[in-house]
């Protein structure tokens, strides 16, 4: 069954075919988004994230491969009425916020009555209701970013494609943005979120893909990525700290990690000295650890 956004063996090269400076931005990239999920799209600068998003929106054509957005080939204008897009470093026309939203909404074929209602609604969602009549040229970058998000939401889209939506926001606005995205997701919207802010992705995304040098190096459920099957954390009582290197004492408990291959041996040592094993769990990593590990591997290969 096709996903809401599908890339099938997409390759994108920049530069003339005969040029020596030809750069491969995406290399045999395949990915499928499922309806209703929040999908995190990660990668270092220049990994090809924005290129992948621009291909889906039809801003450029793949050098090879193909893709589908809501069941239509990339670049289909009518399909774009069902999506919302926020570009990185959003550039807006210098008009009052409410008028600007109505302009973008009308381009998606929305009727004036619904537009008036929706523009009020989304401005309230991004907490700019009081600024509706102010020209966006006079807004701070964070406020412009919120207007950018509002224009992406104006048409009540099925799929939200957000390229670095929190890059210009202060911590409070980031929390508000996170809440807003979760609320949109609860309302049934699929969200494709490209971001450098790994903590944000870790908090809200159901699945994550990591892109490095144009190649997809990891894709999976966020929970699965964060749990390591290579190392285990053991919590014990009644065992001296000296016998396990790197262990720490927490009250009357001893906490330490061991590689999966040495887990059985560690447990037997605790029991041998009369200790008690309280818990054994896979080590939980942060997304940053996973990201650095994977992109670091990419550098070495």
């Amino acid at each position, binding site marked *: 069954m096709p996903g809401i956004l599908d890339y099938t063996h997409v390759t994108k090269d920049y530069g003339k075919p005969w040029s020596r400076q030809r750069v491969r931005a995406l290399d045999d990239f395949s990915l499928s988004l499922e309806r209703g999920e929040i999908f995190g799209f990660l990668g270092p600068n220049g990994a090809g994230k924005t290129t992948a998003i621009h291909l889906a929106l039809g*801003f450029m054509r793949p050098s090879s491969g193909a893709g589908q957005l809501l069941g239509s080939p990339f670049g289909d204008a009518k399909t774009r009425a069902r999506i919302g897009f926020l570009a990185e470093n959003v550039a807006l026309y210098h008009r009052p916020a409410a008028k600007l939203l109505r302009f973008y909404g009308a381009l998606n074929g929305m009727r004036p009555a619904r537009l008036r209602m929706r523009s009020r609604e989304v401005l309230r969602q991004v907490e700019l209701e009081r600024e509706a009549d102010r020209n966006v040229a006079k807004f701070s970058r964070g406020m412009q970013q919120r207007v950018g998000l509002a224009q992406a939401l104006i048409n009540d889209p099925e799929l939200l494609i957000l390229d670095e939506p929190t890059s210009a926001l202060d911590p409070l606005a980031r929390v508000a943005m996170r809440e807003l995205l979760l609320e949109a997701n609860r309302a049934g919207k699929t969200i494709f979120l490209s971001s450098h802010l790994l903590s944000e992705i870790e908090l809200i995304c159901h699945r994550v893909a990591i892109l490095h040098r144009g190649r997809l190096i990891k894709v999976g459920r966020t929970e699965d990525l964060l749990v390591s099957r290579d190392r285990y954390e053991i919590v014990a009582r009644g065992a001296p700290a000296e016998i396990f290197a790197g262990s720490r004492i927490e009250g009357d408990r001893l906490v330490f990690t061991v590689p999966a291959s040495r887990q059985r041996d560690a447990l037997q040592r605790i029991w041998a000295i009369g200790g008690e094993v309280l818990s054994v769990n896979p080590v939980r990593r942060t997304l940053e650890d996973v990201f650095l590990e994977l992109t670091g591997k990419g550098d070495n290969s």
Partner: protein
Amino acid sequence: MIPSLLIAVNFLRQHRWPVILLFGYILLTAAATGEFGRGRPVPVDIVFFVEQQAIFICLFSAFLAADAIHGERKSRRILLLLSKAISRAEYLLAIMLAVWTVAMIYAILSAVCSVWLTARSMLPGDGLWPMMFLVMAGALIAASVAMFFSTFLNPYLATACTLAFFCVPAALPAIRHHGAAWWPGYPLLAQFLDFGFRSGWTPNWVAAMAALVESGVFWCLAVAVFNRKDIAVPVE
């Protein structure tokens, strides 16, 4: 069609200051030609005014159309615009509509000024309104050719190529003798420069109709090229 109209209106809004400045320029040059209402304008000055405005309107249309895509790409505003349910053909149509609207207002304003000048110097003004329609056709073909070149060249080169393209029959006798009547823009340009208040000047409606059809052809060519363009790649 509605999205194209909306984008056209927005485009006009974005370019309102240069447009208003140029409207002011027409009024100022008309006033100067009419010696600010104090004397009777000389016929040769009025002819020069009409010819100058005709060429100027076409040039301005070419400049405006040539810079449109580049300006939007440079500011990156095109990304949000084309992320909506707008095809690239509709987008180019919007630019054409906007540029032609400016040219129409410009042509009407210069025709009104010319009528005022001819009335002051007791000259027959019959040819001025047909001339205005020819200028509108000239502005349309200038805009469409410039827009076509701007889909793959920077605005300066696109404008230069447009001017060079219109002048090809003037430089190549073979084309001038055999195909000048159908060369896009050239017969209109020749007619603008031939304008006078003598009875021998008659508007070339065939050239105007040909310009309308050729504008459609160049719009199609522009769409074909622009559809293959990576618009997200930053321009300098």
